[in-house]
């Protein structure tokens, strides 16, 4: 390993993607801080996610990347350039950190994150081996690009690949996002406080083609409430999911009044974390909230279709479930089977197969997360160990010639 475990100094982790990627960065934060316990590790993330980042354990300062400000500059600068603009940019960067970090670990492959690393730190470790303008990728970045192009038999979870990018192994145990209780809006204060199963339903998804249609949710919630009479359901999502949440409520029987809460568009990200923490299960297709649910210790059950793939972005840690569709736009949904699974997860192996879907359960071992079929007869060989060995050997070579 390149970095002395006794080394001190400030390090920065750069994660400029969405909610799901930020939460999936928890394992690499755990591994980096475990390797260099005397170094402080700060986090640079998009401004809207910063309050959630401040709940992360082991993270020092959270720096807010103001994408809106950069976009505003970009809008102003089309067709123009004045040297004086750099003054404004310099002030902005100086406000982030007055002194450069020793090392920036960059988790994103896009140029902005790589440039941010170069601007804020003396040394950058991440996707590029030889600076922002040189196209040569690190072994792990090459591997991730290959997986993105042709997924093949990949079984390495994105969270663990983040560890590989930063030159650390996955943490021995999944990190838990623990935080003091956070106040919820008054009408949601009782969520999770009464008896029975509390299920959070993630109504929407980051992209429209990854959202579960409202009629499917209506069927699913109806089936759940008829199967588990003591059950309570909380609809979660962002402001743009509110109309879908209303459509779901309109389609449900009035008899379920008292069993349904609508929290869409009404929580901050820390409040969402608190809400999910209070639920026993979190169900949905939006991987961001599912990752958050897994991180706060709740059980997650995902419906993965479109571009979502269980092996790369399934909920991290043991005991989570993912229904993976065979096609991008499923026409049938495993409604009864998934409802039954919530009540009797131990009996999952005995479930009848559902046409068009496969069911996967999460586990955790020395190579990080792994999803295995409910019957544990994964036809694919688990190649994680050999991939880690191969990429680690390649990693040593370029580091050695620096």
């Amino acid at each position, binding site marked *: 390993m390149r970095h002395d475990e006794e080394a001190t100094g400030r390090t920065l982790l750069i994660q400029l993607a969405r909610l799901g990627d930020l939460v999936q960065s928890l394992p690499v934060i755990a591994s980096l801080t475990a390797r260099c316990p005397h170094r402080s590790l700060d986090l640079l993330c998009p401004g809207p996610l910063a309050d959630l980042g401040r709940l992360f354990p082991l993270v020092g300062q959270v720096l807010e990347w103001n994408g809106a400000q950069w976009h505003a500059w970009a809008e102003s600068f*089309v067709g123009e350039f004045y040297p004086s603009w750099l003054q404004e940019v310099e002030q902005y*960067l100086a406000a982030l950190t007055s002194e450069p970090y020793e090392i920036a670990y960059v988790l994103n492959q896009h140029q902005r994150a790589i440039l941010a690393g170069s601007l804020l730190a003396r040394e950058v470790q991440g996707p590029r081996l030889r600076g922002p303008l*040189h196209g040569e990728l690190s072994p792990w970045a090459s591997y991730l690009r290959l997986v993105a192009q042709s997924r093949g038999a990949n079984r390495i979870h994105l969270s663990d690949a983040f560890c590989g990018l930063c030159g650390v192994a996955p943490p021995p145990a999944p990190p838990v996002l623990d935080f003091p209780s956070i106040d919820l809006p008054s009408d949601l204060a009782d969520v999770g406080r009464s008896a029975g199963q509390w299920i959070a339903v993630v109504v929407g998804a980051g992209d429209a083609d990854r959202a579960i249609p409202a009629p499917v949710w209506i069927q699913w919630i109806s089936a759940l409430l008829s199967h588990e009479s003591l059950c309570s359901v909380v609809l979660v999502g962002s402001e743009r999911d509110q109309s879908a949440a209303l459509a779901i409520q309109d389609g449900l029987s009035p008899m379920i009044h008292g069993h349904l809460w609508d929290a869409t568009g009404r929580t901050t990200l820390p409040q969402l974390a608190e809400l999910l923490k209070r639920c026993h299960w979190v169900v949905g297709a939006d991987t961001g909230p599912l990752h958050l649910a897994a991180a706060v210790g709740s059980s997650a059950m995902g419906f993965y279709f479109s571009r979502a793939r269980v092996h790369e972005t399934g909920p991290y840690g043991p005991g989570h479930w993912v229904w993976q569709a065979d096609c991008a736009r499923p026409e049938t949904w495993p409604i009864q089977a998934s409802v039954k699974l919530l009540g009797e997860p131990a009996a999952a192996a005995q479930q009848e197969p559902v046409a068009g879907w496969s069911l996967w359960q999460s586990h955790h071992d020395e190579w990080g997360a792994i999803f295995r079929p409910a019957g544990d007869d994964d036809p694919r060989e688990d190649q994680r160990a050999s991939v880690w060995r191969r990429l680690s050997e390649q990693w040593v070579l370029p580091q050695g010639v620096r």
Partner: protein
Amino acid sequence: MNSFETNISRLARRDSALAAALRQSGGGRLEIIPARTGLPSARANGRWVHSSYDPIKEAQAWAESQSHQDGETIVVLGVGLLYHVEALCARLPRAETVVLVVPDLSVLHDAASVRTWGDWMDRVTWAWGTTESVTERILSAGHPLRLVTYAPAASLHADGHRAIETALQRRVAGQAGGQLRIAVVGPIYGGSLPITRYAVSALESLGHHVRWLDPSVHATSYHQLELLKNAQHRLALQSKYAEMLSRVTMAQLAEDPPDLVLALAQAPLILPMLEHLRRKRFLTAMWFVENYRHLTYWQQLAAGYDFWFVIQQEPCIAALKQAGAKEVRYLPMAADPSVHCPLELTQAEREECGSDVSFVGAGYANRRAIFPSLLNREWSFKLWGNEWDGATDLTCVLQRNGDRIDTDICLKVFNASTVNLNLHSWAGIGFDPNGDFVNPRTFELAACGAFQLTDRRSLMSDLFAANEVASLSSPDEFPGEITRWLREPEQRLAMARMARQRVLTEHTYVHRMSSLLSQIGVASPDRIGSILMGSRQAAALAAAATDSFPTTAASLGTFPPTQRVELKQLAAQIRSRSPMGTLSREDLMVLMLDEYRSETKDLV
């Protein structure tokens, strides 16, 4: 010491000549009346110059509404009692320069007499005297300039302010060396199509990079819709088609964002698209080469364009402003001497196109009513053009069976005719009683060195003298004037020569485009103005970067000094170095800015 003495003594420390001149001048131009707050307010010509309730509050609101960029010199038009100047100084950072234009010392005398000025007056540069000296004083304060107008006071000296603005625009035009990227959007079809071509050519000859977004390539499809018999369907589909072409234009603009979008009349840009362009910080201008009384679609578009240029003056300008246009300027028609010029004609061309008297144009009602009186005279008369259906009495003089006449034939007719009639179109009988604008044919005939007889137009005298273009005040004068001019060939030829010279000196499309750009440049000093003045060129940028950003200055130094450099060019220069090369912090900042810039503008 009274207010006047206090103010003048203090003023003398900054501008002793002005102080002395004020002592010599009288006041009384403003009628001083106490406002409800007890402060002095003022009226002039029966109108309030400041609020009759609270002049300070009103001035503060005005100052708040003024926009400016750091480093600009603010030029204030309108003196009054200076409440607005005081409010503006209070709002601006101390380093900003404020120049107050004083066209009339008597107003400033009144202002000095009624209240004692505060420390803000030490920040003001006073531009007074002749138009030339005011212009010099403004320009000496430094660039870029931003003109702000306190309208209630400025309206007292509108002519003087206009002269100063014109002088400033001339300076901008004279010093313009920077290359703009201009997208020109023309019509699908119609009379403004050739004008678009001339405007494009003129802008190119001024050295700008011009992209003509030409929807006329879709004209055939558009005309197919005119064949639909159901009017409801036809109008709906034509509207949809124009909207689609508007979106196509937006997509083209997004691909290569220009500094300025210049639309010509009938350009298929609809209001929502124009509003979207403004949100994306595109600067737009429309040259409305139409009679605003006849074609009224400007009412729906007035608020959409940043600048309107019109071929009529008042009440056209007021009407557009009433409809929401912010900046409306007069910009008359012109000619393109590379097209409209004297021709050497063959005998055959003279025989076909020549006559004693001719007219080229469409069969409007006034022409149908007037031209029969010119038949069966001692001169030959030929009528050219289309849309003469039903004018049976004119069939004997109508050429080519009333086919549309292209520019080539038109020019031959102009050149081959002894007297060219130029009767502006009107839907009534006789001459248009509101005839104000001067049509393109006037300039084109003049540029050809052709003699013309026109109907009287109220704006003609600003453009051509009476010894350059002959005008008639009544249709009844046509026969007599034609006869007279046919008999005076030397005088006729002399007039035609002078008219052509006037066009070459003042009325080409190059003149118009230069004027249009300099007007926009003065009104938009931080964008078009700075490009025109060359402050975006590599040498100027490098000089500005030298102290604070030496690496950037060095990068800029690799460009030819007069090349205009934008962010993307600078970023490309940094990227073009060896990929293993060391990047400075400045380089990284430029690359980061360019990453965000390179996102396609979300226009479509």
